[in-house]
Every structure is written in C-alpha cells, then in structure tokens.
C-alpha cells in the first residue's frame, strides 16, 4: 500500500531527529542531577546518587543505545518534573493541544477564506488594503500580548468570558474521559451544558491563535484566487452566463485550494508545538508548555519525547495533506 510505503520512507528522518535531539540535550549547559537535587542540605552524595538514577554516569553512546532501545519498545522515559512516564504525559496532553489547534485552525479558515476571496475580487481597493492591515496586525502582535489583551477585555472588564484557566470550569465535575477531546466527549455523552462550558473556555485561546495564523491563510487564498480568477476557464464560465456565486465558489475556489491546503498543513504543524505561549497564558495543559517546562528544568526525557511526537505529527500531517490533494484535485494522486 502506497501509504505504508510513504510511512516507511519517513522512518530514517524520524531516527535522525531523535538522535539529533538526544545529542543536543546532552550538550546543553545545566546538569539535571544538580537541579533536581536542590532540596535543602543536599550534598555531593545526593547529587551523585541522582546522577546514577538518571543514568547520566554512563558514556553517551551507551546512553543513546539505551534510549533507542527504549523508544523502540514504547518506553519514552520518565519526566522528573511531573514524575509521570513521558508517554502517559504526552497521551494526556496531546488531545488538549490538538483540540485547541484544530479549533483555532477552523476559526482562522472561516475568517481567512472569505477575507482572501473578497480581497482577490477587488484587488487594490480599500477592502484589499483593509484585509492586508488586519493580517499584518494579527501577525505583528505576539500571541502572549493578544492573549492577555483578550483576557483583559473580555474577562476582567466585560466579564463575558469565563475564567481563562484550563479547559473546563474548575468547579465543575470532571469531564468524561473517552477521547480526550472535550467537545467530542461531551457531545458523545449528551451533556450539552458541559459542551457549552468547554466551548466557552476554548474561545479565547483559539481566537488568540487564529489571529496569528490569519495572515498566511488569507494572503495565500488571495494570491491563489487572483491567479485562478484570471484563467481561461473562469472567463469561459462567466461568458457562458453562470451565476457569480457558482463561478467564484464552485469553480474558482476549488481550483485555488491546493496552495491553501499546503499552507494549512504547514501552519497546523507549527501551531501544534509553537503555541506554547498561548498555553502558558491560558494555563492550557498542552504539549508545548509541557516540553518548555521540561527544557528549562534540564529534564531530557520529555523534550526528546516531544520532539519525536512533533516529527511524527509532521509526517502524518503531510500524508493527510497529500490525501486531501487527491480529493480536491482529481488529477493528483499519491504516487
């Protein structure tokens, strides 16, 4: 099966990523044994003991061999900062990041596609410049600034947003744990009260991220639409007398979608890991902030696990994008 072959072909890349991260972590300054032995009165003996427990007293090639064997058997190590196995931590936190990223992406697409189309329909006009301004603002304002601003306006001043910490109201009962995606879980169980609560918690962080990713999506849509609107078949469709909506959405947009899909895939992969600032501002229990905390604490295992996860996610996303190509454009197929 072609898909299987594709996956197999990306294995060497994954291996390279894993080895590279492993070596990089050990080259970074900061000795985890010292950092974690920082209880009052910890002396040299405690530090050495900790080093032995962490396996850091062995030579690097030996450590690498152990690590690769562990990864192959599904053991990504244990996090010193949370005290849990890394695989368990990532499995718990990935749905949170995914839910946030997907929602933000959908929100961004809902805004970006119409804006891009409108800008393409009237290039050079006031509307076009307006869209350009909105996109630039969205990209220039860093996510933690826009996040804090949104919290200030909607929570502190207006009071319409719920308290901006975590995925669900802290006083409410814990959600059913089926897939880890709260919107899906609540819908499956039929708890619409809970669904509304989870959705309202999701709004502010998703809006923050959507603002940031608006620019590439809208600009790519605009550029692609411009190219397509000037092509022969659109001219023919118009001259034949087809309705405006039909020409733009059914014929032009569908053909302009390929580059937009590519950009969406890239944006999605980067958002998944790089939304760490949004996760910090909104106390969102995602993989980005997990990896950052581990990195700052010289905790190797979670960072390596996170990088492996992101590399795998990138490979999978590329596969999905290629599949979507096949749907959007019947001339393309996975070769």
């Amino acid at each position, binding site marked *: 099966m072609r898909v299987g072959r594709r996956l197999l072909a990306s294995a060497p890349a994954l291996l390279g990523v894993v080895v590279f991260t492993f070596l990089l972590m050990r080259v970074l300054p900061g000795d985890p044994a010292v950092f974690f032995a920082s209880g009052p009165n910890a*002396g040299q003996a405690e530090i050495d003991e900790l080093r032995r427990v962490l396996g850091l007293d062995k030579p690097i090639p030996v450590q690498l061999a152990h690590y690769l064997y562990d990864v192959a058997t599904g053991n990504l190590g244990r996090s010193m900062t949370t005290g849990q196995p890394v695989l368990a931590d990532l499995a718990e936190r990935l749905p949170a990041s995914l839910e946030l990223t997907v929602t933000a992406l959908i929100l961004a697409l809902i805004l970006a596609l119409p804006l891009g189309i409108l800008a393409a329909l009237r290039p050079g006009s006031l509307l076009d410049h307006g869209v350009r301004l909105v996109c630039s603002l969205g990209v220039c304002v860093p996510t933690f600034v826009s996040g804090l601003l949104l919290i200030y306006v909607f929570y502190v001043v207006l009071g319409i947003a719920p308290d901006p910490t975590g995925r669900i109201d802290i006083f409410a009962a814990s959600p059913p744990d089926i897939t880890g995606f709260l919107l899906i879980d609540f819908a499956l169980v039929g708890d619409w009260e809970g669904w509304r609560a989870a959705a309202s918690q999701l709004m502010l962080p998703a809006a923050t991220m959507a603002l940031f990713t608006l620019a590439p999506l809208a600009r790519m849509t605009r550029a692609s639409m411009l190219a397509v609107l000037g092509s022969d078949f659109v001219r023919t469709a118009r001259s034949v007398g087809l309705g405006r909506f039909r020409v733009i959405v059914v014929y032009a947009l569908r053909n302009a979608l390929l580059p937009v899909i590519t950009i969406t895939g890239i944006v999605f992969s980067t958002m998944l890991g790089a939304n760490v600032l949004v996760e910090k501002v909104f106390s969102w229990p995602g993989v980005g902030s997990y990896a950052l905390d581990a990195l700052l604490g010289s905790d190797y295992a979670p960072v390596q696990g996170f990088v492996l996860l992101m590399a795998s996610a990138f490979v999978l996303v590329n596969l999905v994008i290629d599949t979507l190509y096949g749907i959007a454009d019947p001339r393309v197929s996975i070769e």
Partner: protein
Amino acid sequence: MNFNRRQGLQGLLGVAAGGAIGTTIAAPEAAAQTRAETLRQVMGGIINSLDPTTPGGTRENFGLAMSTYDRLASFGVKAGEGGPTFDMDNIHGELADKIDRSADGLTYTFHIREGATWHDGSPVTTADVKWSLDRMVSARSLAPPQVASGSHTSPDQYSVVGDRQVQVKLPRPDRLALGNLCIPYAMMINSELAKKNASADDPWAMNWLKENTAGGGAYVVETNRPGQQVVLRRNETWKNGKGGALPFFKRIILQTVPEASTRASLVERGDADISIDLAASDVPAILQRGRVKVVSVPQTNAFQAIVFNTQQAPFDNPKVRQALAAALPYEAMFQAAQFGRGRILFGAHWTQVPDAAFPRTMPLNLDLDRAKALLAEAGHPNGFATTFSFANSMAAFAEPMAALIKESLGRIGVEVTVQKMPDSQISTMVVERRLPFFTDIGSAWLPSPDYFFRTYFTGAHRWNYSGFNNPEVNELVQAARFETDSAKYDTAVKRMINIAAEQVPMAMVWQANQDAVMAKNVDGFTYWFHRQVDFRDLKRA
C-alpha cells in the same frame, strides 16, 4: 491503490461516523460542595509529587504534604509583623498527644493519640510510626541530609517502648532534634499500605508514594493531575487538629496558573480565593484597588543575598568584598526590586553586634569613598571586571538589582557584566563554584541562628554559596549546635555574626514579604516556615 476524489470523500464520511468507540458514562460525582466551602488556590509553581521527600520535588509539594500527612509534632503560632507566623520555640503534639523530654535532652518519648486513624480507616500503630521514622533517615530522598541537622541519622535511634509510645534517642542534646520532627519530611505514613506497594529494590515505596498518599492528615487527595491541579477533600475523621476540630474548608483546589497577571485577575474577580506568589509589582496596585485582602508578612526565615565567591579571585580577598559591599546601592535596590516591601537587612552601624538575633540588620551601607579606599588598599586601584549572575525565575526582582549594581560599581571602577541564566544552569554553576558574583535566596525551615551559619556560612555543600571557610566559624558552629546553656550559645552566635560582618562573604540584603492575596472573607492565613499555604488554618468568615 489510487485515491480518487470519490473514495476519499467516502473515507472521510466513514471516519466521522465511526467515531464513538463505546460510551462510558462518567459516574456521578459526589455531592458537589458549595462554593463557599471550597477554597481555590492558584499558584505559579507545580505539584510534581505527593511525597515531599521525592528528589527533584518542588517547594509547592511541601505545603501540600502538611495537609495530607500528619507529623508527630508541630510548631505553634505567634503574632508576627503583618500577621500570624510560625513559632519554632513553641512545639506541640500533632499525631502525638504528649511529648516527654528527658532531663539530659537525649531522649524524647512520643505518646500516640488514642483513636487516630489513617485515611483508609485502619488505626495508627507504633509500628507505623517506627517505619515512618526509619524511612525518614534511610530512604534515598531529600530527608536524610535535612534531618541530620537535628541529629537524626540512624533507625537505631527509634524504638517502640509501649503499646502507644515511641522513643527517639539522640547521641547529643541537639537544639533542632524536636524541630526536625515537625517538618514535611517527618511525615507519618500508613506503613501497611506503603509496604504493600513497595518492592525489593524500592523498600520505602518511594515510587508509589510519589503518585499516591498513605497518610492520615486533615485532607485526602481526591484527584491529582501532576503539573496542573490537585483537588483535596476534608478528612472527616481527622483527630489531630487543635482541640480535635476539623478545618473549615471541605474542598481545596490547588491549581497551577503560570501567568502572574491572570492569577491576580482571578483573585480580584473572586474566581480564585487565594494566591501567595503574585508579582511584587502587582501588589501595590491591588492594595490600592482594595477589592481583596492582602496579608503581607516578611519572610523572617529567608533572605536575599548578594554573594561573593570567596574561593575565586579577586573575591578571595576580604578587602575586595568589603569594598564592593560598601558600593552596593542597598536602598535603591530595595525600592526597585521589592517596592520597599519586606524587612531590610542592611543599614546598621554597629561594630560589635548588640544581640544574637539572626538574620538581622548588618552594617552594610553605601559609601563610595570608603569603597574606593578599600579597593585601593586591596591592590585594585583601577578596579577590575567581573560578572553578576542570577536565575531566570528571579528575573522579576533580580533584573532591577543587577542594573543598579552595575551602575553603582561602575562608579568605583568595577566593570560588571550582567548574566541571566536558566535555573538548572545556574544551579550547576553554583555547585561547581564557577560564579564569582551572584544573587540567590536562602531559607531555613528551622531558623535558629546557628542553623543559618551552619548551612550558609560553612561546609562544602551547595548552600554555602560563597564557599566561606573560616576555621573559627566552623568551630563555633559545631559547638553552638549542642550548646544547652543559652548565655554561651548567644556569645557564640554573636561572635559568628561579628565575623560575618567583618569578612562579608555575602551581603544579606533583605527579607522579602510574602504577600498573600485572598478574598476578603478568607481568614486565618498564617505564615509558615515552608512558605506555602497551610489549608488547615483557613476559614471563610
């Protein structure tokens, strides 16, 4: 197989429809507590272990353990500057309802309270107490080095001497022996439950106790999501409180919210009840708006210090240290970094210390002329270049400090490069003694003066930041530790303070406030030695 459009669309539909893989309806929660009976604390740190002795544990673990586990004894409470604070000199029983001390101070007998039970309902036995004490000194954890400061070193010191009596024997009369049984590390564990989850190479259940509790304290852990939140519910059968009373709050939610401004907003809007680690810069504005209550207590068992590495030139020369100590802009730093919130440790003018209280105001004053003269005497008439370092986590106050230090030292010819590093990196460099000049915080759970000197002014361990090695101080510290005569003790301490003032291995600059911000109707906040919230104290008016 070629994906064409039709097959792709059909595939997508299939995936969307086949989403549900069995539905498990969540069991209905226990009757929800009212909002008033629930306390929500938001903090910047994380809870990463339910066992405070776990290596690599965070400071927040200590506060949690005080509520989920009991200890044999506990410190009392006294009125302090700004609010109630812990009293190390007034120890009363917690799990033990009576404590007997022998006349020579070498034997303590603890009478375990009748009817005390663990969270799972089984009774507390002397075997449990003995196991817990053995674990405290034997396990590979953070506990042994700390409790050794009170002469707790071997399981042979602990014995069961009656059906409800456990005895602790000391080799010498150590002033901190009893105090060390009141700290989070000295927790009493349900040994039957713990042993069931121990293994041959983990006989003290270190791994299991990280994620589970086997205690008998005032609160039971209901849910624990490491790095995110911990939810506690009150132990309705708790007997070890003052007068046998239960704490007020039936449910405690301890949540990690990394962003300081969000924490402040949450408390001000009433969605959170208490937070003790807001940014110092936010507190004046909060006080002014007056929507919440602020309890500000100077952290009398902690200090901020500017450290000179006495093992590295040019700071191995006492005159250089004295010179720089005379060039530090103390008052300006205190205002810029701490907004004047705290207790100063500089500004005194004595040459012989008047009393044995420590930490205290030391003769550290800004005097640039004296600084220049001392520097010339030390052989650096044109100054020298050095670096000043601090950890990322301290940036909020250390950054202004660093800027002011750089400016002031520049005036006597010392060129300072400011270096900010991640906490783990600076820890390593401090241990390896590679930093010449840096700032750090020191704290002591058992703040007796000789303990401060023993920890921060002697020894090869990491807490002796400056690497200070003065033979007279080393000798005095050992003698003071076991000194039972208070006059002799005071004399020894005064001599140590004088040496520290003269040699200046580090300039202790201030004791920052702990600004606890809470809802107006939350009462009872007490400042404890572990600098965390003790939930048992709090109630809603």
